[in-house]
Each structure stands twice: as C-alpha cells, then as structure tokens.
C-alpha cells in the first residue's frame, strides 16, 4: 500500500507512544497499588506512582489465603459467567441463524425491535427484574443471575452473530444441501465452523457481562458472604470503613488478568468477529 516518509513514521510512533501510556498507565497504577504495603490505593511518593519502589505480596496473600473468601467469589463468578456464555451462544446462534438464513414476515421488524428495546435505561429496569426473579423463587440463586445475564446479552449476541452469518456465502450451504443435508444440518456442518471468529467474540462479551455485572447481583445475592459474586464481594471490600485499598487493588488485578488473557488470546478474532450491522465485504 502506501509507504510512509520518515516524518510521518516519527509522528506515528509519537502518537503510538502517547496512546500506549494513556492505555496502560491506569492499569499499571492499579498493579503498583496492589503491591504497596499499608492498605492505601494512593501514594504521595511521586516516584512510587510510576515504578514499584516498594513491593510486597502481602495483599495477594491475604486475598487468596487469609480472611477474604476471594477464591469462593471467583468460583461463583466463573460458574455464572461460564454458564451464561454457553447458554447465550446456543440461544443467540439459533436466533441469529433464523434471522440471517430465513426470510419471514416480521424479520426486519424483529431485528429493529431487539435493538430499540435496548434504549430502556438499565438502572431503572433493575427493580422489576429483581422483583420478578424473587417472585419465581430465584432469590439467592445463581441460576437467577444466569437467566438474567443471558437475556441482557442476547441482543448484542444475536446482532453480532447475525451480522457475521450474513457474510458467509450461502452458496456453500446450498452446495451441502444438494449433497443431501437439510438446511439445519448444512448450517451446523458448514456455516457454523466458518463463524468461529464471531462465536469467539460473542462468547467473550457474554462472559464479560457475567463477570463484571454488579447492580443486579448485589440485589439477588446480597448474602451470605461466600455466595457473592466477584463484583459484589469487591464492592464490599471497597465499602468497609477503613478501605483496605491494597487488598482491593490486588483483587482487581486478579480479576482483570483472566479477562486480559482471554482478550489477548482472542485478539486475532476481534477485528473480524465484530460485525455489527453485517457490512463486511
């Protein structure tokens, strides 16, 4: 394509370096705080804001081994987010398949409806959602959260998958049908394997929703301590009288790291798998 002149090259790197600092520094700051003794998030030691002048594993030790049921929270959240991901992918794939491959009355209206319904402010929907889950007896039950999170992410998942399915040439599946597959079978055997990037990205977002949601979880599973999800547990730490920021930061770093690793692993799928609107050539 274009070859850049040295001046442009330098400008590009200057922008990239600034952007790198902008992107990484807040996370780096949290990592530094997690290794600081004394339970403070903040430091007035200027150097300590940029490099680890003091480093201790004490915060991590306390979070993992002493006092806090951090590992239990992590297990609860892993369960909820994991099941949400699986359920969401199955449900959204079937809907996205129908929206992409079938022509039926109300198809377009249905898609618009899905998106427009998102315009309702989430914070304000909390009260009825919590009441509903309580009424059907899913109060203090992780499955209640799984059901709720699945429907939270359904719109995004359906749209994203539908967009990607649209980019897979239907001829491939038709060839399969000539060879004797039914429409569904040919889709499962031919279309779905081609949609791997979109499935990966969709799954990632479903997982992140379950992993990071706080408001509903705090209403549905407020107690006991060991049944809480990660976010609710972390908030609890952040709301103690003398906030042990060091513990909090150590916990936050351990919450980010798994997501970050999954993100990095799925990085190659991100650009191709994110197809809102199905406009790829």
């Amino acid at each position, binding site marked *: 394509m274009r070859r850049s002149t040295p001046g442009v090259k330098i400008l590009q790197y200057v922008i990239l370096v600034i952007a790198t600092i902008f992107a990484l520094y807040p996370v780096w700051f949290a990592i530094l705080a997690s290794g600081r003794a004394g339970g403070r998030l*903040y430091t007035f030691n200027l150097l300590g*804001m940029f490099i680890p002048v003091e480093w201790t594993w004490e915060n991590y030790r306390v979070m993992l081994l002493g006092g806090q049921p951090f590992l239990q929270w992590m297990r609860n959240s892993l369960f909820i987010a994991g099941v949400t991901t699986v359920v969401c992918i199955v449900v959204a794939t079937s809907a996205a398949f129908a*929206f992409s491959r*079938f022509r039926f009355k109300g198809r377009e209206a249905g898609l618009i409806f899905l998106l427009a319904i998102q315009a309702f402010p989430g914070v304000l929907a909390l009260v009825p959602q919590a009441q509903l889950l309580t009424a059907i007896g899913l109060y203090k039950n992780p499955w209640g959260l799984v059901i709720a999170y699945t429907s939270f992410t359904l719109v995004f998942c359906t749209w994203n998958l539908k967009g990607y399915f649209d980019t897979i040439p239907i001829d491939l599946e038709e060839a399969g049908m000539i060879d004797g597959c039914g*429409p569904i079978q040919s889709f499962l055997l031919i279309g779905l394997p081609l949609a791997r990037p979109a499935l990966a990205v969709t799954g990632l977002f479903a997982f992140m929703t379950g992993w990071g949601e706080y408001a509903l979880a705090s209403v549905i599973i407020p107690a006991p301590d060991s049944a809480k999800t990660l976010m609710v547990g972390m908030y609890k730490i952040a709301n103690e009288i003398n906030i042990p920021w060091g513990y909090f930061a150590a916990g936050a770093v351990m919450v980010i790291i798994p997501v970050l690793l999954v993100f990095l692993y799925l990085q190659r799928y991100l*650009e191709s798998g994110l197809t*809102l*609107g199905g406009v790829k050539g």
Partner: protein
Amino acid sequence: MVGWSGRRKALTILLFIAPTLIGILIFSVYPILYNTFISFTNRGMYHPNPDCTQTLTSIFEPSCWPMFRARAPKGIGQPYTVQTPFYGNYAALVGKLFTKESMVALLFVLIALLPLWGARRLNQHYDRQLTRPVSSFVVWLGGIIGVILLAWVLKLPQQFAVLMKAGDFFVVTIRTILYVAICIPLFFIVGLTLALILNSSDLRGRTAFRVIMVVPWAASTVAIMMSLVWQFFFREQGTINQLLKLIGVQGPAWLNNSTLAFAVIVLANVWYTYPFFMTVILGALQSIPPEQYEAAEVDGANWWDKLTKITLPLLRPAVLPATVLSSITTFQMFGTVWAITQGRPSMGAGVPGATELVMVYAYKQIFQTNAYGRMGAYAVIMFVFLFIATLYSLRVTRITKGAYE
C-alpha cells in the same frame, strides 16, 4: 433458503427464535411495562407495598400473581395506588415546560439548530449530482458556523437558562446530551487515528501495539476500580497535580471545578470506549480493497483526499451502528461517573451537581429518596426519547438490511 415452506418452515423459525423472544419479553419488555404502570402511581417512600386487591396492581406486580402469592411482601407501609390525575408524575417532571416562556426558549433553541439540518439536506442534494461544487466537509462547517451565529443572535445561553429553570429534568437532560455530543466525536477521532496508524503495513510492532490498545477494554470489566484510579489522577494531591508541581505549576482542584470535572468524566469514558471504535474501524479498514487507493494515487490524490473521499465513506456503514450503540450507552452512563464524582461538584442546594448525568440523577432519586413512581415517569420519558432516536438512526444507517437484499 430453498427447499421448504409452509407450516413446517413457520414452526422451525418459531422454534429458533422462541428462546430469545421469551428472554427479551421477560427481562426487557416486562420491566418497561411495569415501569410504565408504576409511573402512574404514587409508589415511593410512604407507599412502598403493592395492594393485590387492585386489578391493575395484581396484573403488573409479580408477587400478586396467583402462583407467587405466597411470597408477596407484607410490609406495614401504605399500599401504592394510581394517582389522580394519573399523569401527576409526568406533570411534576416536565410540567413547567408548557409555560409560554419555556416554549419560546425551546423554539429559539430549535431554530438555532436549523443550519445543521440545512447542511444535511444540501449535502444530500449534492450527493445526487454528478459533481459537487464544495465538499461535504465545507458544507458541514458552514452549518456549524450558522449555528454559532444564530446562537449569538438569539442569545442562546439566556434561552438555556430559562429552560434550566423548568426543572431538574432539563438540566440533566441537556447536560447529558452535551456529554454524548462531546464523547462520541472523541471516541471516533481517537479510534480512527489509532486504527489508521495500526493499519499501515510497514509499521514495526503492529501486533504488540494492537494488543496494548485494547487493554482498557478488558479493564472495563472492573470499571469501579479503574474509575477510582482515574479519580486519583485528578485529585488535588493526585498524579497530575504532583507532576504539574514538578514543572512549577500549581494545578487546579480538578474535581471541584464544574467544567474540569466534566472534562475528567469525558476523558475516563474515552479511555474505556476508544478500543471498541478502534477495533470496529480496523476491521472495516481491512475490507477496503487496496486497488481503490492505488487508483486514487494514479489520479493524483493526496492523503487528505484519500481519507475523505475513500476511507471515511467506506467506513460509514461499519461506524454508524457502533456510534448508535455507543450513543445509547453513553447517554445511560452511570458507573464510571458515579465512581469518579458521584455527580459532584455541587451546584447549590437542591440542584443537580455539575456532573449529574441522567442515570446518576435517576439513581440518586430512586435509591436515596425512593421516588419509584417519579422515576418510573422519568424512565418512560427517557425511553421514548431514546427509542425514537434509535429508530431514526436505524433508518438512516439501514443496518437491518441483510446481506442478500
């Protein structure tokens, strides 16, 4: 798809869509209906409990449904009832808008925005011609200058002041619209700049930079933690001010100044959201065939021509849906703002704080004053507004068209 039709097809489609439909109906549509009902009642601190003997309540309140009756809350407070007049909550929120003074102010504001609409129509007109006398950029610039001129002639700040007096509702709504209008272009500009750089094939360390740039996205899972970090950067003794002190400048108290605090929540939101835009744009950039640029270069186009005449138009279909979605989420921004400023700095007693966006305001009202009924009305107004905006933008972007139409 070929091969089948009739009852069997309809049944299959239903089977495929049913789980999604049920989930959406229960967790999205039902809360909307419920909120609409509550918005007509006086539910609040003094009337918290349902009265299942009332027909409407027994329909909307899940704990009143026969199968769940056993779990109905039995508190001591008064049961809530439908208000008389039933639109009481709405009148309290937006009633003052319907005075002569406010209507005139609103009219002036709308008139001041006319040049933008004119610019859009003019651009559409030029698009239909074979050649355009001026580029679309110039037309938009003219529109913006027109708005500024009209704003000056019509004394717009004064009109806004009149509107603000019509209630908290307008204060927070206008402020939130301003927030969205500032955030979205920033998302786009930062995302586009980085995507363009990272898309150049002869860049060393391209993969590494791509990975680094999406870190904020992954970190947004623990938005509360990262927002507290952002808050610390801008505290009076925070990182920024300590750095400023090194070069001999006394930094301002960022979070106590209404304008600066607003800028801080914009910046934090840009940090969270630019990776999304960057990724969407990168994906779209890769689907632009390089021949287009080669052909343009043969015709003597410089990089600005290539950007405005090839890249941007071809990015449009991918960026618009992302913009629509981000506009909705930014409009409903809550967690980040709550963690950084909690709506502060205060603008006086009984008035929303300088960074109190609509959701922050609603959250405070619901969970601090328990004004469920009032906030139900608030939610319904917000919903109607965003719903119309979404439908309009869908029509403009045409993203519901399938790949084979």
